[in-house]
């Protein structure tokens, strides 16, 4: 099943250029991406009647083409060109045309606080690492459940960016509990054995959250849980 990224993923230009395209989707090392953010410096700006074409450089690769469509009916505001030499954060969609990648921006914001730049580069490493980890553990989790469980598609998305209201850790814990066939449910110890990359306190926090949201309930004691959605 597809792990769909419904989040906006921070990336480097080098990652975007390396992304592989299969039909309509792009993947960076198997992680599906569509909406992305990049931070870089404007090297060039060209204004046309309907759009502004920027070249944004984040120093990981050659400057990337970023196109911003201009609303010709709207005066002022949206039509202001950002000057070359300015650091900006671009949020947009990745596109590929005749094998050339570019971004169609829905937001271009000059950076007012350069510490955002530091945050962005850390977020890139973090997001891609977590997205990849989710993919890896998704393929390891038991796939023995029937085809009717549509909401397990909520597995995708970044770790700290909740998808379907659940973070990656919570999703992983919930899925293991759902797949547990034993009547008394999944124990915390069993969860820890299966999720060796998560600490016990992280697992406990996830269990507490899932329990308070009604996804799971305790059975024989506070260490054993079953899913309310179980088959």
């Amino acid at each position, binding site marked *: 099943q597809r792990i769909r990224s419904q989040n906006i993923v921070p990336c480097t230009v*080098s990652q975007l250029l390396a992304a592989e395209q299969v039909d309509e989707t792009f993947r960076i090392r198997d992680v599906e991406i569509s909406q992305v953010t990049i931070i870089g410096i404007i090297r060039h700006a060209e204004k046309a009647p309907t759009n502004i074409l920027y070249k944004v450089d984040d120093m990981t690769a050659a400057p990337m083409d970023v196109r911003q469509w201009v609303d010709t009916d709207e005066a002022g505001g949206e039509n202001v060109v950002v000057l070359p030499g300015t*650091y900006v954060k671009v949020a947009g969609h990745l596109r590929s045309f005749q094998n050339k990648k570019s971004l169609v921006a829905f937001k271009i914001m000059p950076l007012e*606080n*350069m*510490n955002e730049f530091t945050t962005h580069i850390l977020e*890139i*490493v973090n997001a891609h690492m977590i997205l990849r980890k989710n993919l890896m553990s998704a393929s390891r989790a038991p796939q023995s459940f029937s085809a009717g469980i549509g909401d397990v598609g909520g597995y995708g998305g970044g770790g700290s960016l909740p998808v379907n209201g659940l973070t990656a850790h919570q999703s992983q814990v919930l899925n293991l509990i759902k797949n547990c066939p034993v009547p008394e449910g999944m124990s915390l110890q069993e969860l820890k054995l299966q999720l060796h990359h998560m600490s016990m306190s992280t697992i406990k926090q996830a269990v507490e959250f899932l329990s308070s949201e009604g996804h799971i309930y305790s059975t024989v004691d506070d260490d054993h849980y079953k899913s309310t959605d179980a088959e």
Partner: protein
Amino acid sequence: IHPTGKLFVLSDGEGKHATVELSEPLDEEISGVLEVVGRVTNQATIMCMSYVQFREDKSPFDLELYNEALKIIHEFPEYFPFG
């Protein structure tokens, strides 16, 4: 900044100094945090190709934090590739 305006010294997030050389003397006053793009020479200086001054009018830039972030991104080239 050297009097000729063709050389200046930068201090990085760890307090280490780097000498930056320019092909043309500076034509403006520079201060604060700079990002220099250039090539390393055999004398371990940087031949500057371009530079940009970081905005610090609204908030100061945390250079030490940036330095730590750099170490992290170099540790994970698979998640932060360089061209």
